[in-house]
């Protein structure tokens, strides 16, 4: 099971590639909204993909605090670890 943080980050990056313009390199500090232009609707769809990948449910409430790639990876990690 991919519950270590680095594995999660790597898998998450695969999902984020679809949003990433060629000139941007995704790092843990990349801002989902301002740099990858992931708006609220796209974010909800992305979360559905991630939920399937990691077999978790991400509560909408928790997403309010997520701004960067690291924060999203960390959230997934926390939910996975609590399972």
């Amino acid at each position, binding site marked *: 099971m991919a519950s270590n943080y680095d594995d999660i980050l790597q898998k998450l990056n695969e999902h984020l590639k679809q949003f990433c313009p060629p000139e941007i390199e995704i790092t843990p500090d990349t801002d989902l909204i301002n740099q990858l232009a992931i708006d*609220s*609707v*796209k974010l*909800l769809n992305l*979360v559905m993909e991630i939920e399937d990948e990691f077999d*978790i*449910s991400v509560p*909408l*409430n928790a997403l309010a605090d997520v701004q960067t790639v690291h924060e999203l990876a960390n959230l997934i990690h926390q939910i996975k670890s609590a399972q």
Partner: protein
Amino acid sequence: MSLLDKLDAIAAARKALLPEGVEVFGTPIEEVYSSTAAKIGDRRVLFLGTNNYLGLTFAPQCLEAAHKAIDSEGTGTTGSRMANGSYSGHRALEREFAEFYRCHSCIVFTTGYQANLATISGLAGTGDVILIDGDSHASIYDGCRLSGAEIIRFRHNDAQDLEKRLRRLGDRSRSALIIVEGIYSMLGDRTPLAEIVRIKTTYHSTLLLDEAHSLGVLGQTGQGLVEETGLLDQVDFITGTFSKSLGNIGGYCVSNHPQLDQLRYVSRPYIFTASPTPATIASTRAALKLLREGVELRRQLWSNARTLYARLKELGYQLGPEPSPIIATILDTPQEAIALWRGLLEHGIYVNLMLPPAAPEGKSLVRCSVSAAHSSEQIDFIGETFAVLRKTIFQH
């Protein structure tokens, strides 16, 4: 960014998207002639987006009841029922709704929006989980937020996806609230209720069904999807609105769980707002009677819905997955949607326009809702207008 700067940014985004000189949102209506006709600018238009499914806004019985109530009880209750008391009409309407659904309890709310806010936030709280369909109405999202419960979205109308999420919850599924809608307001499709009921029973969860767009529209007596599917006894809570098939304003929740009545003491959207006006209550009671007896209205409504759906499909418009009184044409870009909306208005037909992010999955919709009050000639005229616009807007 200051508070006002944020609003300026919204004004700029609107200006960039919307054409000059037309009020796309909140279009000024100068005069109303009937349940289906009004004046916009200096033109007479046909209403084709008002969710007035049974056309009851001018039903003589409802008008008369409203007039009488104003004369005898005044224009307003000037406060909440908790503070100012419960008029006999409010109590009678609750009894009539409970009797209509053959269930123990009903609470009437000031709007349908508040019915969802009050019911959801009254049932669930911090530590509970609510599972909602991805295409849920804003009132459901807002009710969930107000509750403080954990909110989990499942894929629209995908019962398997819901089941997967319940399974992940383990024992917590027993205190989970599942929320679905009878007919979804964007594309007019129905929730797969039999499947949802099977799942909620397996996982011992609680089910809330919003019949906002299906009350008066589905079922022999108009109860909604619960009647059409014969699943009334399997649904824990039903909410709905007076603002569509009943042609008024207000909302309700009915349930066989007697605990529903406790919401009157804990639910803020019920306690801290004024109760509906006497005229609203009296005319809604008259409308509910017409709705229950409205077999012929429903037959006409569905005949109109099926005819228009088939015509638009034949013309090549991309539509929602099944015929229903809500007929949404799905457009690739906001510009196409605005052009179609505007073209319809220029031909005297007023419909709804939905642009991202209001419409699901970044789509743009031109949404029609047919009424039992539309004549077959009007439905033909609407079809012809869509045919003309198909040629002019989408020649390529």
